[in-house]
């Protein structure tokens, strides 16, 4: 089981802030493929990966990163702090 979190417009498009997912995905990209295949709202949120960032256990990572040992995955648009 892995916790998947969504922020900003990703959260709005998918319609929830977080969920627990049973997955056998080996990488972030594989997890994204699983999510896309679920429902249209996921496909819409993950339509353009260049518009998304991913954090693994609260650290910025990349879509080709492995998921082994990861407890928390977060998807969000580029950050706009400051």
């Amino acid at each position, binding site marked *: 089981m892995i916790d998947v979190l969504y*922020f*900003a417009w990703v*959260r709005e498009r998918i319609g929830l802030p977080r969920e627990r997912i049973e997955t056998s995905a080996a990488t972030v990209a594989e997890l994204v493929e699983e999510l896309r295949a679920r429902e249209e709202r996921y496909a819409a949120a993950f339509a353009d990966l260049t518009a998304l960032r991913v*954090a693994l256990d609260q*650290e910025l990572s990349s879509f080709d990163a492995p998921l082994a040992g990861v407890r928390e995955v977060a998807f*969000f*648009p*580029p*950050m706009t702090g*400051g």
Partner: protein
Amino acid sequence: MRVAVQPAPFDPGAEVSAFTAGVRGAGAVVSFTGLVRDEGGRLSAMEIEHYPGMTETAISGIAAEAVARWSLADVLVIHRHGRLIPGEAIMMVATAAPHRGDAFAAAEFLMDYLKSRAPFWKKEIGADGAEWVAAKVSDEDALKRW
């Protein structure tokens, strides 16, 4: 070094005074305060979402990087989240250093990194609806100078 991520308003002047009073061995204090613009009256509020946990870790990491790069006596970062109205202070950084060059450079570095490496997302609320603020290419480019 102090990092505060909070919904509550803060008084930038009082923060700079307290920060300055607590610093030892500095000859320069630089501070920057970011305010919510009203965008020519178009904006009625700004909503700031963040990633609790990662936000504090990311900002502390950025501040630690500044301490490693420049000769600093102290660093302060305050960043708000939640709903803010135009004119309110969103965030501030303050740096204290033996000399002003380090204090200015570190403050700019902190600002550049907070903009695109701290997990905050701004949403502008106006009369015509609400819209997420898009990250600018120039924000990402700004990191290259460091």
